[in-house]
């Protein structure tokens, strides 16, 4: 509870925009993943040009976060995966252009204080996302599927 209060305070102090607040919410350090509603909202907002750059900027920061914040990284990959499938047309070229950020996460490791490797989830997500992005046909199919709904 207090964590989310602090986050809300940080949002105000740092003067984040509405879009950035939504994204920070979706990629927070809480243990549960981002809700579908949040993901949908981000995908919707990606169609707006200003919001799009705000989203990508924040995601870039989150993806390069420290190992301790592995949840930031893992959730950012979740958001990115969703954007690639359901977001605006701009998302795919952006991610392709910055593919190295995701590719290099395939060997992400972080040992928590109990010596447990928490990097597995990041590695799997990064691997999945990379292979999706390298497969033009599959990506096109995925995007068409979503648009019909």
């Amino acid at each position, binding site marked *: 509870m207090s964590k989310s209060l602090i986050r809300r305070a940080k949002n105000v102090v740092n003067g984040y925009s509405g879009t950035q607040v939504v994204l920070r919410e979706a990629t927070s350090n809480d243990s549960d993943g981002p809700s579908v509603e949040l993901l949908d909202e981000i995908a919707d907002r990606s169609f707006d040009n200003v919001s799009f750059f705000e989203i990508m900027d924040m995601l870039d920061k989150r993806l390069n976060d420290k190992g301790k914040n592995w949840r930031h990284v893992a959730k950012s990959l979740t958001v990115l995966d969703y954007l690639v499938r359901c977001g605006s047309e701009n998302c795919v070229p952006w991610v392709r252009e910055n593919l*190295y*950020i995701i590719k*290099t996460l395939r060997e*992400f490791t972080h040992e928590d204080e109990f010596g447990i490797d928490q990097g*597995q989830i990041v590695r799997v997500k990064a691997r999945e996302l990379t292979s999706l992005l390298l497969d033009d046909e599959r990506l096109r199919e995925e995007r068409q599927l979503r648009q019909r709904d």
Partner: protein
Amino acid sequence: MSRFDVDVERAVRKACSYEETAPKRKHVRACIVYTWDHKSSKAVFSILKTLPLGQDEITVFKALITIHKIIQEGHGSAIIEGIKNREWIASLGRIYPENGTGSYGRIIEGYVEVLLKKLDFHRIHSGFNGTFEYEEYMSLVSTSDPDQGYETVLDLMDLQDVIDRFGRLLFSSISSGRRNECKISALVPLVGESYGIYKFVMSMIRAIYRQVGEEGAVEPLYARYCEQHSRLFEFYADCSAIKYLTSLLRIPKLPGDPPSLEVGDEYVEGKPSN
């Protein structure tokens, strides 16, 4: 020096510290991302050259792993920069003579050999990227001119042989204990690279076979390919026994028998076919 240069300098130093552990991925990744952000690898190499490499063999070994990683995953400029610094890399192999005090002398020498071979290959065949990721167009380019394709396959196989030899050397130097993570971490880029080469060689031999249309022409290539296949099969089996490796990357599973020249019995990536 700009702020970024300071950051990347810290990353290089931390990746190549004197502690006998794997180079921390976080720092290696920072170096790789730097080369993409700046589309240049000059800074990384010039910082590498300032490391106290003459004092500590673990630092040298970790520097070699880091260089390999950066060449593989970094921006294309890393390959060019690596070729420019070929002599410097070669000199690293001579700092610690084979029968030196520590146990790293021999594997440093072996690693340098792999890197030099790799750089030489990239200098001649500039169409390949650092990890030999499969790109369809490359095999098409090579087979429009079967002679050139033949050469490329031979060079790829030579590189594969050097990697294979070094893999054996590494395994023979590994004993039990946690301190071995440093040596084991060198296997990570080797697995990726050998598999990339493996896939390339197969598709190119098939393409040449289709083009030329007679089995006799590709017979020597195919025979050597089968030989490499079985050695690679064993190499991956050995790697699968190391928990540190299997948690970090997916070790490819090759089919028991080498795939035939005929296209049709496709092997799917990451899926054992029998």
